[in-house]
C-alpha cells in the first residue's frame, strides 16, 4: 500500500523520505510515512532487485558489513555478485515457484563466507520489484526446536479456555515461552481508540502493567494501518542503527520502496523513543484482528538488550497470531454462552407472548418483559404511536427527542444489522446529558424504517476509575531543528481518572441477541399482517357462503313452496272438490305457503341488512321522516293518524335508505298496534346537551342525540321489552293487528347496530310506547 501524500507540507517535501534524515522533524505522528521509511534496521541488509534479471536496483548502505560488498558496487550488477551463482540460482527458482507477492518467505540460508556469518534469506515481491532481506540465521548445528509441535500444543490449550480473560492470559504466556522475551501484554483497543492491557505475562521482577490504559495517540493511525496488513513486526534492537537504501528511490520508477511487509523495515523515531522511555530494548508485535479490524495487539517487550527473534520463531508467532484472531471470538462466545442462552430463551418467550396477545404491549408490560433478558436499567418501545416503557427510562418527551436524533444515525442505513449502541450517549448526543443517570448507555434497533418504531435499552451511568499508564493529557515536546517536536511521554506513572457519563459497556453477546430479537419481532409483525390477510380472506369466504345460503333459501326453498301453492290452488278450482272442510284445508295450505314465503323474504332481508355496506352521509332526517310517512301510506288509512314533529330534526350521519327503513318499521308498528280512535305519533329528539335522564338511556348513549317515536298505542308489558327484538317473535296472534312476520324490530335493531347506535323503549300498557335510538354513524362505514 502506498500512503497518500500528507496534506500538510512536510520538511522532506520534494525529496524522498528517510527516517535517518527526517525522522526527528515529525510534528504529527499521523502524517509519518511509516510504510516507506527509506531505511532498514541495520542488524540486517536488503537488496531490491529487478525481477526480470535479478539486477540490483537498490541496496541498504550496510551491505559491506553483511554481504562483503559496498552498496554502490552492487548497483546495476547481477545479484550473483552479492550471493554467488549458487545463491542466484536458488533465488531464481524461489521466485519462479513461490507465492511471493507481498508475502515474505524464507528462501534459504546463505552459507558463511570469509568473515560473513551464515544469513537467512527471505524474499518477497511488491510493486514490481523483488525485495531480498538478509539477517543472522537462527539455525544451529544442534537443530531447531519442533515449532510445529509447540504451536499445536498451544492451540489445544487456547481452545480449552473458558473465558476471554483466560484465553488472553494463556496467549500471553504462550507467546512469552515461544519468543523468550521478558514481557508479553495483550493490548485491547476500546471503541474510542485508547487501549488497555487486558492480559500480561512477565518476568517476575518487572512492574505489572495489567489493567493500565493508554491513550489512542500512543499507537498512531499509520501504525494501526500497517497492522491490518501484516502479522508480525520485529524490532530486535530498539537502540540499533538505521541503514538507508542506496539510492533512496527506485531508479526505474523514481518511487520509494514500500516496506510494509519487510521484517527489516526501519522503525519510526517516535516509536523507538517511546520504547526507550519505557526502558524497552527489543520488541515483537503481532495484531489480533477481527473482520479486517484491529481488536488488539500482542506486544512482546524485552529489557535486557537486543533480542533477535529468528525467522522460524517469527513464523510460528505469525501463525499463532492468526489462530488467536480466529479463536478469541470463540472464547468470548464460550464465556457468554450461559448469558446468551438466557437472553435467547427470554426473547423467545417474549415473542411467544406477543404472538399470543396479538400485540407488542406485553414486551414492556408482561412477564417476562424486555428487561428480563438484557442487563439494563430500562427499556422502551415506540409502537402504535406511543412509548411503552419499563424500568428506569428517560421521560416520554426525552424519548421523543432521542427518537428524532436516532433517525439520522448512519448505523440504521445498514441493511443487515441496523443497530446503534453506545456506553457514552451524552458524548454523541449532547441533550442526553440531562439523563446520564438513567441512560448513559443505549442500544437502539428500529422495528420499521417508515413508522419510526424503536426498541431501546438503557444503562445508567457507572462512575468508573481508569488507571492510565501515565497522564494521557500530557503532550510533551522538545526543541527540534524545525521548532518544537512531539516526543513520546516520558512518564508512565499511574494516573487515575474517574470517568463520568459512561455506562458499563454492551457485550457483543448482548448486541447479537438484540439484533436477533429485532429480526424475530419483525417476522412476527409480518406474520401478523399475513394472518390478518388470511382472516380477511376467510371473512370474504364466509360472506360468500352466506350469500350462497341466501340463494338456497330463496330458490331451493321457494320452488317447492310455489308447487304446493299451485296444486292447492288447482285443487280448489277443481269443481270435484265440494266438501267445505276440504276446501278450507286447501285454503289453509295456500295461506301457509304464502306465510312461509314472506318469512323467507324477511330472513333474506335481515341477512342483507347485516351484510350490505352502509353509504353513510349527512342526512336531513326531516326528509327521511316525510318519506317514511309517505311509504307507510299513513294518510290514506281510515281515520288518518296525527303525526307530529314538534321541532325540526337535526341532520345525522347515516345511510339514508336504511335509516328510512328504521323510521318506516317503527312508524308502521306505531300505527298497527294502536286501537285508539285518534292514533297519534310524535317523532322528536333529545339533543346531547339536554336532559337525557328521563329517556332511561343506556350507558354510552349520553352525549349523543337521542331520537324517539312516541305513540298512543296498546303498549308493551315491560317483561316483553327484550323479546320484541327477537326474530319472528310476535306478541299477538298471527293475524291480529294486521299480521306480519315479526321481523320488523329485529331489522330495526340490526340497522341501528350497524350505525353503532342503541335502541331501547319505554311503554305503559294501554297508554302507548316510546322507542328511543341513537345513530352514531361514522364516515364511510
Amino acid at each position: 500500500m502506498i500512503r497518500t501524500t500528507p496534506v500538510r507540507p512536510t520538511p522532506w517535501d520534494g525529496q524522498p523520505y528517510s527516517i535517518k534524515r527526517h525522522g526527528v522533524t515529525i510534528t504529527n505522528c499521523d502524517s509519518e510515512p511509516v510504510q516507506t521509511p527509506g531505511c532498514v534496521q541495520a542488524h540486517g541488509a536488503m537488496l531490491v532487485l529487478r525481477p526480470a534479471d535479478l539486477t540490483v536496483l537498490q541496496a541498504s548502505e550496510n551491505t559491506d558489513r553483511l554481504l562483503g560488498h559496498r552498496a554502490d558496487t552492487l548497483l546495476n550488477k547481477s545479484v550473483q555478485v552479492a550471493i554467488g551463482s549458487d545463491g542466484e540460482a536458488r533465488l531464481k527458482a524461489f521466485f519462479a515457484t513461490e507465492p511471493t507477492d507481498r508475502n515474505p518467505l524464507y528462501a534459504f540460508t546463505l552459507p558463511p563466507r570469509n568473515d560473513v556469518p551464515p544469513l537467512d534469506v527471505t524474499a518477497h515481491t511488491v510493486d514490481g520489484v523483488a525485495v531480498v532481506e538478509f539477517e543472522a540465521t537462527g539455525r544451529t548445528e544442534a537443530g531447531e526446536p519442533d515449532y510445529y509441535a509447540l504451536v499445536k500444543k498451544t492451540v489445544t490449550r487456547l481452545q480449552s479456555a473458558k473465558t476471554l480473560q483466560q484465553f488472553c492470559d494463556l496467549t500471553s504466556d504462550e507467546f512469552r515461552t515461544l519468543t523468550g522475551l521478558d514481557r508479553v501484554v495483550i493490548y485491547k483497543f476500546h471503541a474510542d481508540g485508547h487501549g488497555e492491557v487486558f492480559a500480561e505475562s512477565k518476568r517476575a521482577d518487572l512492574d505489572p502493567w495489567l489493567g493500565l490504559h493508554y491513550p489512542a495517540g500512543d499507537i498512531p493511525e499509520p501504525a494501526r494501518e500497517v497492522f491490518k496488513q501484516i502479522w508480525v513486526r520485529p524490532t530486535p534492537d530498539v537502540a540499533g542503527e538505521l541503514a538507508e537504501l542506496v539510492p533512496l528511490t527506485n531508479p526505474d520508477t523514481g518511487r520509494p520502496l514500500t516496506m510494509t511487509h519487510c521484517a527489516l523495515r526501519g522503525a519510526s523515531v517516535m516509536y523507538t523513543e517511546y520504547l526507550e522511555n519505557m526502558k524497552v530494548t527489543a520488541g515483537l508485535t503481532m495484531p489480533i484482528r477481527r473482520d479486517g479490524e484491529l481488536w488488539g495487539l500482542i506486544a512482546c517487550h524485552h529489557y535486557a538488550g537486543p533480542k533477535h527473534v529468528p525467522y522460524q520463531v517469527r513464523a510460528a508467532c505469525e501463525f499463532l497470531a492468526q489462530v488467536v484472531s480466529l479463536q478469541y471470538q470463540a472464547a468470548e462466545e464460550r464465556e457468554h454462552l450461559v448469558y446468551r442462552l438466557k437472553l435467547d430463551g427470554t426473547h423467545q418467550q417474549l415473542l411467544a407472548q406477543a404472538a399470543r396477545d396479538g400485540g407488542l404491549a406485553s414486551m414492556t408490560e408482561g412477564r417476562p418483559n424486555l428487561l428480563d433478558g438484557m442487563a439494563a436499567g430500562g427499556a422502551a418501545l415506540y409502537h402504535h404511536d406511543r412509548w411503552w416503557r419499563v424500568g428506569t427510562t428517560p421521560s416520554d418527551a426525552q424519548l421523543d427527542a432521542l427518537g428524532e436524533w436516532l433517525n439520522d444515525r448512519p448505523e440504521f442505513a445498514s441493511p443487515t444489522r441496523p443497530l446503534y449502541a453506545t456506553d457514552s450517549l451524552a458524548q454523541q448526543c449532547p441533550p442526553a446529558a440531562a439523563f446520564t443517570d438513567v441512560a448513559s448507555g443505549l442500544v437502539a434497533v428500529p422495528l420499521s424504517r417508515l413508522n419510526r418504531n424503536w426498541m431501546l435499552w438503557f444503562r445508567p451511568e457507572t462512575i468508573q476509575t481508569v488507571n492510565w499508564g501515565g497522564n494521557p493529557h500530557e503532550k510533551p515536546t522538545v526543541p527540534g531543528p524545525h521548532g518544537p517536536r512531539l516526543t513520546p511521554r516520558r512518564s508512565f506513572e499511574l494516573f487515575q481518572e474517574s470517568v463520568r457519563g459512561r455506562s458499563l459497556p454492551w457485550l457483543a453477546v448482548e448486541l447479537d441477541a438484540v439484533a436477533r430479537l429485532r429480526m424475530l419481532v419483525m417476522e412476527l409483525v409480518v406474520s401478523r399482517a399475513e394472518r390478518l390477510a388470511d382472516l380477511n380472506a376467510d371473512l370474504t369466504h364466509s360472506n360468500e357462503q352466506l350469500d350462497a345460503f341466501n340463494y338456497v333459501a330463496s330458490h331451493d326453498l321457494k320452488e317447492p313452496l310455489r308447487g304446493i301453492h299451485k296444486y292447492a290452488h288447482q285443487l280448489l278450482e277443481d269443481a270435484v272438490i265440494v266438501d267445505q272442510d276440504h276446501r278450507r284445508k286447501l285454503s289453509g295450505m295456500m295461506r301457509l305457503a304464502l306465510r312461509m314465503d314472506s318469512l323467507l323474504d324477511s330472513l333474506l332481508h335481515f341477512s342483507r341488512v347485516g351484510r350490505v355496506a352502509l353509504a353513510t352521509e349527512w342526512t336531513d332526517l326531516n326528509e327521511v321522516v316525510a318519506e317514511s310517512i309517505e311509504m307507510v301510506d299513513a294518510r290514506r288509512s281510515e281515520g288518518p293518524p296525527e303525526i307530529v314533529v314538534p321541532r325540526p330534526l337535526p341532520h345525522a350521519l347515516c345511510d339514508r335508505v336504511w335509516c328510512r327503513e328504521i323510521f318506516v318499521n317503527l312508524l308502521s308498528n306505531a300505527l298497527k298496534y294502536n286501537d285508539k280512535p285518534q292514533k297519534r305519533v310524535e317523532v322528536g329528539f333529545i339533543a346531547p346537551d339536554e336532559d337525557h335522564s328521563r329517556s332511561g338511556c343506556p350507558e354510552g348513549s349520553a352525549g349523543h342525540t337521542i331520537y324517539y317515536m312516541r305513540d298512543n298505542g296498546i303498549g308493551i308489558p315491560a317483561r316483553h321489552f327484550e323479546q320484541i327484538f327477537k326474530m319472528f317473535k310476535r306478541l299477538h296472534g298471527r293475524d291480529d293487528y294486521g299480521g306480519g312476520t315479526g321481523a320488523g324490530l329485529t331489522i330495526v335493531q340490526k340497522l341501528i347496530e350497524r350505525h353503532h347506535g342503541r335502541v331501547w323503549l319505554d311503554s305503559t300498557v294501554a297508554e302507548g310506547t316510546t322507542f328511543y335510538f341513537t345513530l352514531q354513524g361514522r364516515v364511510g362505514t
Partner: protein
Amino acid sequence: MPVTRQTPFVLVIVEDSDEDFDTVQEAVDRAGFPVEVFRAATGGDGLTVLRAQAPNRPTLVPMDLNTCGIDGREALAAIKVDPALKCVPVVVLSTSANPKDIGFCYAAGANAYHVKPVRHPDHVRVLVDLLTYWMSRAVLPSGERTADEK
C-alpha cells in the same frame, strides 16, 4: 286481441321444474297466441335446442336461472355472445330477488328479469303479461339478418 299469424311463435323454455313448466304452459294457453313450445330442462339443453331452432327465428326464451348442468346464467351469457342467437330476446324467470343475480343477468344481456311469485294466480299473471307483451306489443327482430350478424 292478438293478430292472426301464419307461422306460430317459437318459444324455447328453459325450466327444470315440472310444476313451473306446467305453469308456463297454462299461461301460454291463457294468452291465446299460436305458439310452438320447446322445453329444455337445463341451460345446456336450452342452447342445443336454440341452435337447432335458429333457422325458425325463435321468438322468446323464458329462462330459469338455476338448472342443473350448464345453468341459466351460462346459457344466457353464451346466447348473448353468439352472433346467430344474440338477437333472440331472453327473459329471465327466477325465484331469486338477489340484486347480484339481477345485476348479472342485465349485464349479460338479458332482455328482462322477473321474480316468480309463490302465489299461483300471481305467477300465472306475470307469465301471461310477459307473453302478451312480447307477442303483441314488442317489435321483434325481422327475419333479415343485420349486418353485424354476418
